[in-house]
């Protein structure tokens, strides 16, 4: 009985440990896609009124994030994306965070609370997200320098985690 109790307690403890990791975003996974695909190109106006065309980033690793201001996990990962953006400056890795369904004013107001310096293209009518296999927000795709989508993350991540950034760097220079 004592052994049973200890085993049950150990199982609960292990379960709680994993759950705590998930809640703090420490499960830093990028799932390789079973079937990589060519990233559908797009040209979208950014919150800064510049036009962002995905194909302009050919030759670089692109972290393509789909998000919305009202989505709690999307908000959670924005600061870590900004820190990652600062860490990878000068490297061939870029972050594009495509806002879904909101206008420039809404996103501009959001950046007052969550200042970021990477591009925030606006997919106001949802026509770009419809070309990607996104089921829930946030979803992030990793696009290799050849323009193929190779990995995916559903839900937020701590993007400035060196383990995750090193994974991207390794993908850049296989």
């Amino acid at each position, binding site marked *: 009985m004592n052994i*049973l109790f200890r*085993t*049950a307690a150990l*199982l*609960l403890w292990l*379960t*709680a440990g*994993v*759950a705590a*990791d*998930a809640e703090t975003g420490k*499960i*830093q*996974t990028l*799932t390789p896609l079973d079937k990589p695909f060519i990233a559908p190109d797009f040209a979208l106006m950014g919150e800064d009124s510049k036009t962002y065309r995905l194909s302009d980033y050919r030759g670089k690793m692109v972290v393509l994030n789909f998000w*919305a201001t*009202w*989505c*709690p*996990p999307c908000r959670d990962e924005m600061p870590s994306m900004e820190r990652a953006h600062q860490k990878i400056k000068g490297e061939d890795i870029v972050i594009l965070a495509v806002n*879904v*369904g*909101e206008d420039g004013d809404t996103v501009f107001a959001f950046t007052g609370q969550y200042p970021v310096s990477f591009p925030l293209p606006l997919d*106001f*009518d*949802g026509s770009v997200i419809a070309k990607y296999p996104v*089921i*829930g*927000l946030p979803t992030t795709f990793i696009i290799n320098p050849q323009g193929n989508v190779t990995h995916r*993350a*559903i*839900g937020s*991540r701590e993007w400035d985690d060196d383990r995750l950034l090193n994974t991207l760097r390794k993908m850049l220079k296989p």
Partner: protein
Amino acid sequence: MRIVIDGTRLSVMCITLSIAASANAAFNIGIDEEARLPYWEIAEPGVSIRLVQRLPDQTRGFFQARGFSVEDSEVIAQSCVFQTVFKNISSPSAPSTIEYNLREWVVHAAGARHGLKTREDWEKEWTTRQAPPSARLAFEWSLLPTRQRYRSGDYNWGMSVFSLKPGDEFDLDIVWHQDGKKRSVLLKGVRCAPDIHLKPGDL
């Protein structure tokens, strides 16, 4: 494998109750720290599912701000909406693949049973009601996906709609597939948020 959990009474609102339903399953009820509203949660190896109450007033405000008419927002607000957080918490060193389909979930209330109202069900309704495209887009992405496949570390937040009245109580059959094996839990005594109107500082 099927587990039945009873969390009918959430009388001591500020105390988180954690019950081991079996050696490898746990059920928690308590107050969500961020929303400051009651939640019901199951935590099994590799999976965490939390349902957090949403007040009708929060829901009507959210959707009115996204372009729905007062009437359409009221339809959603009066339908018993929860914020649902579904996570694959399996360790990367022992990863599981988790899949679910909301059409397998069953709501038991007042002696009857029905399914959840999904994105696809709502889309038909919005077409009939001629809701604006921008509002429909926001609505689609706000809801928990009807079907999803999570690898280790993946998760979604989304609203789930139970088609009940504010304050109603119900039981919920939650079903998912973990590494191809069907799993289910009966979550008992879940309660829709009452339709109360908050003043600033109430939460």
